């Protein structure tokens, strides 16, 4: 269960989500692919949820790869 200190990372498009999730898997970063929560539902259909620390690393990778991301802190459990 993922519950505390959580962040949702939104991406510009589906390709970026797939590439980011693949990078997380390759680098053993625990992320979960979830539907984009309702307040941000205009984004592409999927996003990544992880802890703040891992979101920092993920954001660094995303920036280096030219991806555009948005981070949304959340305290709610998602599982």
């Amino acid at each position, binding site marked *: 269960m993922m519950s505390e200190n959580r962040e949702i990372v939104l991406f*510009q*498009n*589906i*390709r970026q*989500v*797939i*590439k980011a*999730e*693949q990078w997380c898997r390759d680098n053993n970063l625990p992320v979960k*692919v*979830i*539907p*984009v929560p309702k307040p941000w*539902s*205009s*984004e*592409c*259909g*999927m*996003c990544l949820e992880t802890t703040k620390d891992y979101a920092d690393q993920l954001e660094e990778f995303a920036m280096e790869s030219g991806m*555009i991301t948005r981070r949304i802190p959340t305290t709610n459990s998602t599982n």
Partner: protein
Amino acid sequence: MNLYFDNCATSFPKPAAVAEAMVRHLNETGGTYGRSAYPRILQSTGLVEECRDQLASKMGTSEAGKIILTANATTALNLMIQGICKRGGHVLTSSMEHNAIARPLEHLRQMGIIEWELLESAPDGRIQVDKIASKIRQNTILVAICHMSNVNGMAQSPGEIKKAIGEIPLLVDASQSLGSHPVEVDKWGIDFLAFTGHKSLLGPTGTGGAFIRYPEMVEPLLYGGTGSGSDSLSMPSFVPDLFEAGTPNITGIHGLNAALKNRPIAQHSRDDFEALLLEVKRNTNYKVRCADDFEHQGKLFSVVHNTLSSSELALRFYEGFGIECRAGLHCAPLAHRHLGSFPTGDCRFSLSPYHTPEELNYLAKAIHDVGK
């Protein structure tokens, strides 16, 4: 014996993995592209992106995200030609074009939007690069060429052409070449590229796409749902979404991805092919349509007989030898005008990596016997 020599129309056979991947998607895995986040979609979407990466590798670009998946090369060419050409523009093209480029250009000309003109070329259709500069005008907005002719297999040199046109965008139709001939989008400076999945890439029909280096230069051809930016009635500004309205051919893309990952080793060599061409050329009853220089020869060629029409030839090849080939204009009237075979056309043979040297020998003998 594999006597199918019409691989430029559509390739056959395909790697077994193509049908297996498509059946698996239809019967077992399912799933669309994006739109939600359950595992079935994640798997299917991941495979579409894997296919985009495979295509990027095949065409020699580091920018896989700028590959747009479409139903075929014609859709991709219409997207780019209609999306790039603005009123008052001048477009240069080659004398060897397929109607997939020629008709969109002519349509825009008839609408009073552009003018287009042919580049000068050698007898086999190769663009004379040193004469390009004299054709360029202040309002030349695009140079659009096929990489490999679907009539005689002659391959242009896009890198040299790009050097000659400088900042003017270069659009290359790689329908016949991608998969069977080197294509280096980044190294050659190609700005826009169209490809199809079902010819040299050995994938299923209904697949293809475009590489668009400068998305900001292209207006979308289709408008609709993308699963992104859905709060807006305008299309997203980013690629590939900007040009991918509607659900893509996901089953077909599964097949194309399998084709890219399971490319067969060619069962005949370039030397075998060259020997076939030399043998055919020995028969003086034929004019052989091919590149003047074998270095620029793709995996197809055509013949014109002294007395038999192209349709008579094709019938004799099939009825006498079981050989499937294509007669006529091959949707490329400009090329036939240039080669001197308009409007009767010619009889075309196009090879597959599955053809063996023995099958090429059989073809050579059949061409000789029919042409006696």
